[in-house]
């Protein structure tokens, strides 16, 4: 059963003289436990599509339904709450809170969800251990490498027990070793805990690991292929 339904989604920017159709009539569905990559050249519309799936950007037309809820029918505050409870984000530039330690960064999401302290503590430690940072709980982002920071970001994205995780170019700033480590961690989490990951990327290493590859160009889906692993 699909957890995400994208129907006739378009996004047109009118900032320039000629309107730009960043996403143009996209229809997609994602099932629980998918490990999918949206690929395409720069400016193809993959990040815009991902942002709309994540409820960060409003479409010009069409809808995104997550578990039966049309996200863009929600009020602005309800949409923020919806994102908090259902969607995990991993950004290209890690975007951790620099004044908090790795543990506090992961806990922060659960604090926003008003989880109890004990539950929060146990989940944070287990998540950071699962991304191989059990020994760096009290390190601040500036004391961690890029790869380590991105692993904290993955742990943070999973902290809220989201329905799916959206990762926009998560490996763009990482070297090969860190990229492979991160992908392996996400693959294990996907396989063992059935966590749904959707990537927007043009990194072939990510594409190679994906079970489904959606190619987008000029805002349109060019191909949508399942890859057997």
């Amino acid at each position, binding site marked *: 059963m699909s957890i995400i339904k994208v129907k006739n989604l378009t996004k047109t920017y009118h900032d320039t003289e000629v309107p730009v159709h960043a996403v143009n009539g996209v229809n997609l569905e994602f099932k629980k436990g998918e490990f999918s990559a949206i690929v395409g050249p720069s400016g193809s519309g993959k990040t815009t599509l991902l942002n709309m799936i994540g409820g960060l950007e409003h479409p010009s037309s069409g809808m995104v339904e997550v578990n039966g809820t049309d996200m863009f029918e929600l009020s602005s505050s309800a949409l923020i709450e919806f994102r908090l409870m259902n969607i995990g984000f991993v950004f290209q530039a890690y975007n951790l809170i620099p004044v908090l330690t790795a543990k506090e960064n992961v806990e922060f999401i659960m604090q926003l969800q008003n989880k109890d302290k004990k539950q929060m503590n146990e989940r944070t430690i287990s998540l950071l251990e699962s991304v191989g940072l059990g020994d760096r709980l009290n390190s601040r982002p500036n004391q961690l490498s890029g790869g380590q920071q991105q692993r904290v970001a993955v742990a*943070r994205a999973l902290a809220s027990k989201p329905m799916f995780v959206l990762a926009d170019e998560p490996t763009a700033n990482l070297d090969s070793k860190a990229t492979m480590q991160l992908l392996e961690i996400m693959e294990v989490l996907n396989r063992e805990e059935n966590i749904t990951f959707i990537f927007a990327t043009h990194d072939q290493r990510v594409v190679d690991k994906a079970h489904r590859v959606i190619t987008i160009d000029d805002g349109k889906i060019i191909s949508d292929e399942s890859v057997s692993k």
Partner: protein
Amino acid sequence: MMLLKIAWRNIWRSKLRSSVVLLAIASGMVGGLFSSAWMNGMANQRVRNDFDIETAHIQFHNPQFADNFDVRKTISNTDSKLRELKNIEGVEYVTSRIKSQAMAATANKNSGVTIVGVNPKTEKEVFKLYTKINEGDGDFFETKKRNSIVISKALAKDLKVKLKSKIILTFQDYNGEITGAAFKVIGIFKTQNSQWDKTTVFVKDADLRKVLDLPTDLSHEIDIVITDFNIAGETSKILQDKFPDILSEDWTEIKPYLSFISEYMDIMMGVFMLIILLALGFGIVNTMLMVILERTRELGMLMAIGMSKSRIFKMIMLETVLLSLLGAIIGEIISMLLINYYGSVGINIASMSEGLESVGYAATSYPALEFYKYIEITGLVLITGVLASIYPSFKALQLNPVEAIRTI
């Protein structure tokens, strides 16, 4: 708790900038509080000086005496009134005086004065004029010699007299006849009010009573010192009910400008602090706007991952308020130390002493500020911090998460 932690740590992200803001707030506080304490100290001293030298806390007069200083408008049964007053709770000291307008003359010059006839023993309990006589300038009726007079240094200079000189006082007696007598100078005082000094002379009650031909037990004024001058108004009303034949007035009625000085200083302090807080407020707004500009990407990320607008608003507000409060506390501690130090050693502006004394202020003043004023100021800074955080917080809420995350 997490928001408080983030807000606190965010303050120290840019140590230099936060230190500059803290320094600005603390300096503003020190400037405002110390100058307020200085003005307040001068005003307090002025008021207390008037209590000690001129008015006491409450005065009794014949209701018609104040109109034209008529020597026949007296208070009757003075002794029994004094006895009765002493037994009233809250009344500490009492004394009676007789007064007359006179012309003081020497071979060189003459001058209009108010003669105050005093009982030296009780006078010293109520008034501290005797402390204003320097060594070598005589005393305040320590001798039993008749017709002795205590005058001020300023009047002595005007009349060109010194200790043991004679002054002729001419005035109207109780029967309306012009009379006069010679008095020998036995003491020369100097207070902080040179105008009052020039127009007031002191003689013994018995000497003046004799020349005035004033019957025993009549007086023109009863001066009362109570335990708390702040309740002089209420006490005066109670005494007025007990002694309906006299007019009882508290110090604010006798010298309305004295209470005005206190109120005026409070207003001045308020205006002064308002200007400082306004300037600080704009400084804080500017700093926080810079902070938001710098953290656009971070704020966008927080919005994206699900931090509500109210929490973002609270986080920025907490950071602003913490910064403001910290600056205020540092400023208040420094102010407190400075005020306590100068409050004990005093600030002497000798170069301005003549000007200050001509309007009743001492050249040495002792800064003082009640503790509740610090609390008040802390509250005001807190309000300033909250107000100053509204605009930057509002700006933060207007950020679009996607655009903010793209910001480099």
